[in-house]
């Protein structure tokens, strides 16, 4: 009886020591400071309405975009605030072949414009080390409309636009991210006419310059785990002789899911190409001319961006 009890007690003690042994082999929790990692999710999408964000998805990500811009809301119910009017649309696809690099291609209804883009995340905001994220975005587009009589394009190089932008962003806490993005747009051909063309010489008047600087200011504010408010303002900087483009004001919502991001908004830009929007925006955010009368309130269009990412 005593031997049985002794064995039982011995077993219990052994079991107890076994339990303690497990605890001592547990991995010590990280309390020492580790190498700082870049901040995550400055933005939930590569788009913020019409502009790009600093975000470049990880290597191996494939993206499809559908973007839509409807007619202006100024006609009210007669075309259901522009939803039933003539609209512009872009289909795009992008891929990240290596980390920090994103290559894209797209086709846009207006002018049958093909565009190819490259985006590179240069530096990323890191707590205690780097205060901002900076990404470069470049886009070249080609107007592929048929022009057999060369009425629009004398040379095929006249069809080309280019766009270069440096995107600088900072995440302020979990909810607010802000971005500043100066850009340079270039149009290969501009309209012009002879002011003087005689024996004394030739002077050509160009309606616009080829190069155009602009500045974009964008912000995202999270109002829920998967919902955010978006705000964007684009200001033209270069002044042209004529046909100066309007600034752009856009505001809306973003809804995120695991694979999709939906952005629904109102803005002035309709052209779905960054260079063309910067150079040619005909819709003013502040007021417009209607039959000689100045109408306050601006010309806005409803639009959406749908993005789907696959890893």
């Amino acid at each position, binding site marked *: 009886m005593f031997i049985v009890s002794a064995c039982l007690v011995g077993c219990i003690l052994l079991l107890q020591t076994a339990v303690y042994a497990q605890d001592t082999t547990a991995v010590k929790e990280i309390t020492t400071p580790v190498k700082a*990692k870049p901040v995550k999710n400055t933005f939930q999408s590569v788009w913020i309405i019409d502009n790009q964000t600093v975000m470049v998805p*990880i290597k191996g990500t494939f993206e499809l975009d559908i973007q839509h811009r409807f007619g202006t809301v100024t006609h009210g119910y007669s075309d259901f605030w522009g939803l039933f009017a003539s609209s512009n649309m872009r289909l795009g696809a992008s891929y990240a072949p290596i980390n920090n690099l994103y290559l894209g291609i797209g086709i846009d209804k207006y002018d049958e414009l093909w565009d190819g883009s490259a985006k590179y995340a240069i530096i990323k905001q890191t707590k205690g080390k780097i205060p901002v994220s900076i990404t470069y975005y470049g886009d070249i587009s080609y107007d592929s409309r048929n022009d057999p009589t060369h009425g629009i394009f004398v040379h095929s190089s006249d069809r080309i636009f280019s766009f270069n932008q440096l995107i600088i962003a900072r995440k302020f806490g979990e909810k607010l991210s802000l971005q500043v993005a100066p850009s340079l747009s270039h149009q290969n051909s501009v309209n012009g006419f002879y002011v003087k063309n005689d024996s004394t010489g030739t002077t050509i008047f160009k309606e616009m310059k080829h190069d155009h600087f602009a500045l974009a200011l964008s912000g995202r504010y999270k109002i829920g785990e998967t919902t955010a408010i978006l705000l964007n303002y684009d200001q033209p900087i270069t002044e042209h002789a004529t046909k100066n483009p309007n600034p752009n004001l856009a505001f809306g919502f973003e809804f995120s899911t695991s694979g999709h991001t939906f952005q629904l908004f109102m803005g002035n830009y309709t052209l779905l190409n960054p260079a063309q929007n910067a150079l040619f925006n005909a819709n003013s955010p502040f007021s417009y001319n209607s039959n000689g009368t100045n109408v306050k309130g601006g010309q806005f269009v409803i639009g959406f961006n749908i993005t789907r990412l696959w*890893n």
Partner: protein
Amino acid sequence: MKRKLTLTISVLAVCILSFAFTTIQQPKPWPVPEKNAKMANPVKSNAESISAGKALWNLHCASCHGKKGLGDGSKAAQLKTTPQDMTVASFQSQSDGSLYYKISEGRDDMPSFKKKIPDAEDIWNLVNFTRTLKK
């Protein structure tokens, strides 16, 4: 009297038959390799980790698993495998390493998240969050 007896027996028979040939939905067993099950969680379960995990949960997981992990998300009805109730002891008793493995690798209806959530620390944050679902 005889008719009443027959009626009672018929009603009882119908009741029993109505859930005969059915099985109570058991969660489909998901074996985890021992090496992965034994992997220790290097991320301290503090407010910051749980908050990060919660954000990831709401974005990636809640649509199937539900906001509180009950398996009642809006997409759950369409799935072939019903998501298990994560609030109960039978789910919570598995190791952190086991949860990490399942989130990373996925199975059938459940996607693999190792590419969607590429930072390992984020998956551990999610594991830390799922512990808070325990009732």
